[in-house]
């Protein structure tokens, strides 16, 4: 872990000693009263500060004043206090505290606070992931991915939804890389195995456990110890396997096939599915209790057709260091209106095809040739996607999204003519302008 500059405001000598012992790997500066604290905080050299609130007999929560001063200097403020009434907690957060812990569990808490702080700082600084590891210019996708990154250093399971080829595995890898976990990123595509094989893959087996088990093999659950287990296409898992996996997740222990000795593994789950989990549950293909275990934070990746602004940066990325391509305006228009049913994966394949062609200039004919057979209008948001969106953002936001998409499409098809759009959609001027405002579109005629 990076060496941090840490400030500790604590009047109790024994508590000071405890904090210093837990922070021994870092540069620690102590203060036991407000005056000293304010003077030291003026330097602004600290990354993170731990604050007690009541400093000695007769004190009136002077630690809060130190928090205010520290937060104003951009220091990450963590309260560690025995004063943990709701009122005190509210005051501390209002003054700029980022975390509040009751005293008495420093052994577990301090390390966790520092680990999260370092990982969150890395995640916040990692704006370049959108230009390298997870390429997107789409504001909504960026916001969702950035929000998901905040949960990367936690134990919270993450469920990534989205059609095939939208980058679910890439995002899962990035989340693991920003998790600060020591172990490996272990990925398994549940749809690629029969039930028996999936059980053997996940839990491992002992030599002779079944015909063909010529040697003992470690399962993916054990390989993911202290790391991340990425379960792709979790919706394809049989109910029987779901039950076994649920037990392993809950107990953090499991029996490899043919073994009488349980194995322990502290893995974090990230799962993905291209299907609507609620529909899977409703149709009896997914256990509700497993769903509860895997959907701590849900991120829904949009299909490429709904983020056409990503075409250019993705093309640039796929051709980096290789033959650069040029697209005619007609080819660009065609690609922007193309449905991209295979999403980013299809775009990669398309790039490979046109890169290998005779000419570096891609015209409409060539674009049509390589994207032939799947040409068509962009699909509207599918029920499953919309349902997942409503679950993540609320019904009202989902309805607004639908009306926004319809208005935007109608305007596009009518060449931006608002009167035609109002007539076609049978909507009032007021509703049109309110929708345009929500979409962030110019309401002055553009």
């Amino acid at each position: 872990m990076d060496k941090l500059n840490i400030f500790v405001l604590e009047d109790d000598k024994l508590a000071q000693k405890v904090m210093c012992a837990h922070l021994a790997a870092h540069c620690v500066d102590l203060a036991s009263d407000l005056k000293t604290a304010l003077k030291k905080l003026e330097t602004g050299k600290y990354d993170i500060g731990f604050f007690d609130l009541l400093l000695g007999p007769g004190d009136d929560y002077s630690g809060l004043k130190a928090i205010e001063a520290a937060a104003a200097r951009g220091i990450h403020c963590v309260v560690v206090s025995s004063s943990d009434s709701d009122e005190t907690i509210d005051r501390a957060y209002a003054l700029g505290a980022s975390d509040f812990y009751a005293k008495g569990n420093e052994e577990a808490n301090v390390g966790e606070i520092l680990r999260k702080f370092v990982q969150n700082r890395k995640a916040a600084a990692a704006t370049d992931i959108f230009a390298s590891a997870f390429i997107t210019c789409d504001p909504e996708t960026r916001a969702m991915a950035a929000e998901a990154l905040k949960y990367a250093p936690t134990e919270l399971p993450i469920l990534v939804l989205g059609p095939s080829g939208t980058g679910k595995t890439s995002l899962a890898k990035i989340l693991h890389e920003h998790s600060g976990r020591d172990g490996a990123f272990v990925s398994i595509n549940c749809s690629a195995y029969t039930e028996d094989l999936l059980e053997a893959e996940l839990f491992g087996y002992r030599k002779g456990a079944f015909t063909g088990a010529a040697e003992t093999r470690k399962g993916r659950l054990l390989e993911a110890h202290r790391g991340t287990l990425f379960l792709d296409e979790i919706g394809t898992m049989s109910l029987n396997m779901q039950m076994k996996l649920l037990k392993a997740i809950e107990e953090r222990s499991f029996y490899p096939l043919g073994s009488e000795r349980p194995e322990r593994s502290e893995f974090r789950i990230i799962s993905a599915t291209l299907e609507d989990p609620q529909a899977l549950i409703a149709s009896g293909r997914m256990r509700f209790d497993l769903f509860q275990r895997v959907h701590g934070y849900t991120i829904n990746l949009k299909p490429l057709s709904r983020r056409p602004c990503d075409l250019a940066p993705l093309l640039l990325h796929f051709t980096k260091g290789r033959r650069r391509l040029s697209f005619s305006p007609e080819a660009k228009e065609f690609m922007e209106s193309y449905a991209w049913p295979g999403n980013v994966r299809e775009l990669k394949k398309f790039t490979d095809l046109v890169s290998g062609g005779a000419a570096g200039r891609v015209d409409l004919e060539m674009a049509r040739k390589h994207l032939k057979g799947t040409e068509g209008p962009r699909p509207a948001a599918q029920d499953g996607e919309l349902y997942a969106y409503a679950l993540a953002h609320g019904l009202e936001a989902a309805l607004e999204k639908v009306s926004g998409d319809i208005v935007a499409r109608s305007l596009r098809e009518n060449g931006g003519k608002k009167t035609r759009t109002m007539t076609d959609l049978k909507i009032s001027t007021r509703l049109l302008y309110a929708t345009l405002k929500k979409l962030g579109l110019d309401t002055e005629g553009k």
Partner: protein
Amino acid sequence: MTGTDHSKLLHDLRSKCSSLKSAAELYKDCSPAEKKEMLALMNAAAAEITRLLSSLAAA
């Protein structure tokens, strides 16, 4: 004793007990010199707890 005094006394008690608990968890990993210092501080904390409890009983 006012309500505020009472809650501050309780805060001090909880604070000292928490420090003692955390110190006890750390103790096994301390060097001999640190153990000596830690023990002295733990003794002082225990004495302070006794004093605070007496104040509470007298109130």
